[in-house]
């Protein structure tokens, strides 16, 4: 069982930072709503607020890590230009997708959309974390501000979801390959 270095980076970017961020989004939305609505009868313990602050900060780190590894580690491998005369495009995912009418859409729509929309996730969640850390439970007394925070948190979730979906599909049709091989385990002959 082996893995290339580039495949490992893609896993870290998508399954590590991206998927973990998406999982965290639903929890953040529920907790933000629960802790900041005035209808909730009991005051949340300071430890609950502290937990959500740390949780949101972890989401900020995950979101920035996902877009930065995507843009500066994986994207250069994705958009690499093959030398003239190259017929095997397996190492050049963008060109591989563009070489067939059945897959070109995954680049012209999927990647073109993903590479930009993904950045709304860290921008939005950074704002959400800042506002919650600053206001905490006092957000229940600022209904408009709370609405903005929930709306941007939802937008962050949608942006990350679109980027994640496009990324997964692109990697299915034209995976980023190459780099040195990492041997995970040796299979036994049957």
């Amino acid at each position, binding site marked *: 069982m082996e893995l290339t270095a580039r495949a490992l980076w893609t896993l870290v970017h998508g399954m590590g930072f991206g998927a973990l961020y998406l999982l965290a989004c639903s929890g953040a939305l529920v907790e933000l709503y629960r802790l900041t609505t*005035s209808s909730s009868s009991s005051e949340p313990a300071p430890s609950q607020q502290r937990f959500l602050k740390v949780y949101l900060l972890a989401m900020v780190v995950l979101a920035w890590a996902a*877009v930065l590894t995507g*843009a*500066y580690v994986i*994207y*250069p491998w994705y*958009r690499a230009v093959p030398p003239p005369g190259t017929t095997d495009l397996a190492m050049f995912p963008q060109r591989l997708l563009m070489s067939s009418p059945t897959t070109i859409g995954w680049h*012209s*729509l999927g990647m*073109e*959309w993903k*590479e*930009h*929309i993904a*950045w*709304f996730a860290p*921008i*939005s969640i*950074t*704002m959400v974390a*800042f*506002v919650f850390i*600053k*206001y905490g439970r*006092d957000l229940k*007394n*600022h209904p*408009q*501000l709370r*609405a*903005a*925070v929930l*709306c*941007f948190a939802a*937008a962050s979730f*949608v*942006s990350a979801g679109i980027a994640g979906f496009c990324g997964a599909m692109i990697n299915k049709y034209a995976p980023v390959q190459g780099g040195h091989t990492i041997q995970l385990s040796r299979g036994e002959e049957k």
Partner: protein
Amino acid sequence: MKMPNGDSLPNAPALTNGSGSAAVLAAGIGSFALAVLACAGDKSAAVKNLLIFYKPTGPLSGVTATAILIWFFTWGILEWRWRNRMVAIKRINVVAFALLGLSLLLTFPPIVDLF
């Protein structure tokens, strides 16, 4: 908010909404800046070349770095101006949501292709 005798009013905000509003509006402006720069880079070869800050990543490096600078700069200015003030947050929310909505639309390739 405090009453003259120092007690807090029940359900009265302890903080002004200025700081939060500054963060909300700046996030909308930053997102919109990113979408406009991405669109401009797609439509003009000259802009595209200007936005190549890091060659392996191409114009995406300039689009995102410039948008982030615009976002932080706007946030800093607004925070400085509004941090201790109550501002018209309803109007600010409308503008921020409109900018965010436009940003989402402007990054969708079939809409960019209309220009």
